[in-house]
């Protein structure tokens, strides 16, 4: 699975996710990636793309929950990502990337590593795999 989240200079957020799914999956299986609110979500608050155990991400509506706790609980992006990873994934393993309309960027996962990278306008850039 691959994904990208962006907040542009106007503070507009967007998110996208694309995948081939699982190796040896059943024909017709649909995972979280195309499901708005599960694998992908964007609002005026943030953009989120998820990856990992699709069935767990679907149950958790993981991407939407990041935006929801920002909107309803007033959490900042880091707090929102930490909250959903810790409290919404049940026994599933997954990760996500997220940006906020304030130019923040956060990666979170409880799986064994996640291929990821991020950059911000102030010159910060990072590419990593493990925790």
């Amino acid at each position, binding site marked *: 699975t*691959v994904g990208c989240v962006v907040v542009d200079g106007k503070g507009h957020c*967007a998110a996208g996710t694309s995948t081939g799914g699982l190796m040896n999956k059943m*024909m017709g299986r649909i995972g979280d990636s195309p499901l*708005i609110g599960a694998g992908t979500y964007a609002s005026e608050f943030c953009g989120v793309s998820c990856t990992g155990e699709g069935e767990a991400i679907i149950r958790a509506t993981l991407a939407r929950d990041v935006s929801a706790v920002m909107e309803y609980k007033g959490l900042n992006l880091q707090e929102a990502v930490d909250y959903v990873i810790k409290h919404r994934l049940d026994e599933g393993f997954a990760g996500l990337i997220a940006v906020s309309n304030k130019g923040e960027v956060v990666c979170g996962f409880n799986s064994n590593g996640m291929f990821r990278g991020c950059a911000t306008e102030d010159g910060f850039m990072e590419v990593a795999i493990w925790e």
Partner: protein
Amino acid sequence: MGGWAIAVHGGAGIDPNLPAERQEEAKQLLTRCLNLGIIALRSNVSAIDVVELVIRELETDPLFNSGRGSALTEKGTVEMEASIMDGTKRRCGAVSGITTVKNPISLARLVMDKSPHSYLAFSGAEDFARKQGVEIVDNEYFVTDDNVGMLKLAKEANSILFDYRIPPMGCAGAAATDSPIQMNGLPISIYAPE
């Protein structure tokens, strides 16, 4: 406003024994995609356009599980899916069961921009793609030798592999059978994370 920001991912749940050269390849691809996005953002390209641009690049490279290099179904074919969302007006588009569209993320974008719907799947999505004139390729285009080997291992282990990026010389069967993890109420020996 705090300025622009971008993040990319290439999948979660990685074999801890992934060879160093494969890790380096992944980092190089992620860096290339980030730089592509950075250049676009510095040119004031909109967030939604940058998302599509970067994911197209990831889909075109066979390294990660999307587009060319996608994981294979039980029949050795590729069925892809993608979605995209613009937060400004909460507009979205999604596709599933894609077998011949070179860049599924762009088809999802077209569903958002050019259809009255949010989500198209299988033959309907493929018909829509042809009407929109997107680039079409044979299903074989998406199939890589690495993934054919991984599917063979998965079938031999009668499982869906825990990590599809474990090289064919790795212990895929052990990864599938030793894990106590359950997924959707079933042991990971049947399912596994993307």
